[in-house]
């Protein structure tokens, strides 16, 4: 019983850390840097950071809660919020956030120490997961909800290739920041 209690007490801290990442991801959607066609938001940046710092389960749930908050009606997605957002073509990118942060977290916790480039690689893997799942959802929405026949390859190229350069740069900065945070011993 004592052991169970101590585990619970420890989990209070993690609940709070995870909800801070939820709030940061939500705030990151507001910081929008206009880029040629696609606006760059800091949303996925915080997803990557959650993966880099928290343990897999908590990273996953922090992003899950972010999606939940948006679906509850808070205008924290890039085009508003509410349950109707599941029919928005870009919802797939949001659905991929928990999975990506889980993958990033489990990859970066598998080794004791990682170099900056290794971390960047892990983060790029995570962002590629986001882009792929997002593009597949785009394909799904376009084909099934509005029943337009588009080829999968067209949708994939439109939904992925545009984002790659920015995502690579974001991953690098996130890796740099995770290392900084580790040096300051901010992370539990």
């Amino acid at each position: 019983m004592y052991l169970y209690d101590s585990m619970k007490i420890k989990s209070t801290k993690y609940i709070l850390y995870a909800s801070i990442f939820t709030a940061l991801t939500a705030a990151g959607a507001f910081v929008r840097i206009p880029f040629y066609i696609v606006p760059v938001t800091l949303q996925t940046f915080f997803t990557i950071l959650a993966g880099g710092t928290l343990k897999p389960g908590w990273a996953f749930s922090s992003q899950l809660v972010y999606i939940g908050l948006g679906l509850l009606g808070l205008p924290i997605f890039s085009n508003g919020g509410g349950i109707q957002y599941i029919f928005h073509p870009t919802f797939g990118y949001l659905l991929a956030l928990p999975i990506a942060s889980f993958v990033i977290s489990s990859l970066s916790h598998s080794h004791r120490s990682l170099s900056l480039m290794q971390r960047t690689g892990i983060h790029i893997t995570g962002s590629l997961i986001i882009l792929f799942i997002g593009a597949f959802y785009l394909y799904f929405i376009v084909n099934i909800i509005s029943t337009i026949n588009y080829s999968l390859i067209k949708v994939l190229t439109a939904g992925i290739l545009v984002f790659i350069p920015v995502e690579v740069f974001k991953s690098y900065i996130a890796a740099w920041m995770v290392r900084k945070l580790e040096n300051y011993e901010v992370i539990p």
Partner: protein
Amino acid sequence: MLNLRFLPVYIEGKVKKRIQKFKKKDKITLAFLFDFFFTINYIKMFKLGLFILFSDITIGQYFPGESFIHRLDPRTKLISLMLFMTGLLFAYHFLSLAIYFLVTIVMLFGSQLPPRLVLGNLKPFVWLFILTLLIHIWSTPGTVVFSCSALHLTVSIEGIRLGLIFGIRLALLVLFAAFLTLTASPIEITDALEKMLSPLKRLGLPVHELVMMLTLSLRFIPTLLEEAEQLKNAQVSRGARFGGNLLQRLKSTIPLVLPLFISAFRRADDLALAMDSRCYGSGAQRSSYRILHYARTDYMVLFSSLITVIFLFFLERSL
């Protein structure tokens, strides 16, 4: 012509006017966001420094009221929403779509929401409607109404019909979903979710923890946004620059995000200590401030929506 230099001032004036207008009508200040014709997004407000509104983010799209639908149990709203949405996905004829449209009209009257507020939810989907309509009209073969060989363009009756059906179906799906978030506050829906998902606790899913995270981050979002603004001002006073090309802008977020992280984690540590010292999560059964209970009207609404959806499903199959 409007001078571009004065555009921020112009927008700010519009925002203030709109706030006053809504205050006069005794409505919440956030409501103007969903104005169908003139929407100012949060990003613009962020630039304008209208931070009073950020504390209102936690209300979400909720439009307070005392109507019949507002007083229903949030679980009822959630379940009947799911029923109607699954029903709509099987609707392929104008007749059943018309009946679903009637249901939305009834809901509009039952909730006493301003129609423009409800319709404003369609705005993010406008280009999807247009795309659906156009592609169906162009790509469906059938009785030709109009054709242009130079553009490889043929318009058929069947195409227009299909485009309209799928467009209307999408619009109705969006409207049904919008009713839930307009008539129930995020906290109400959270409570409903916790109650509805509580059987999953036995499977080892941390439902209570997830719901706790929902409420905690609701509290954190406005605080963090405020803190980010303070940090930005502090860094600017130390000579930091937030501008330039994309690379410089991305780099300039570092002196903002790093201190934000450190202070946020410090805040989390304090709160964790406070919660632990009050024995949060000691394993006992938790009680809650709001107690949900089904009234007779809830059962009636659930029953009637189930009957409607089943009736429409069979109507669809007989057509």
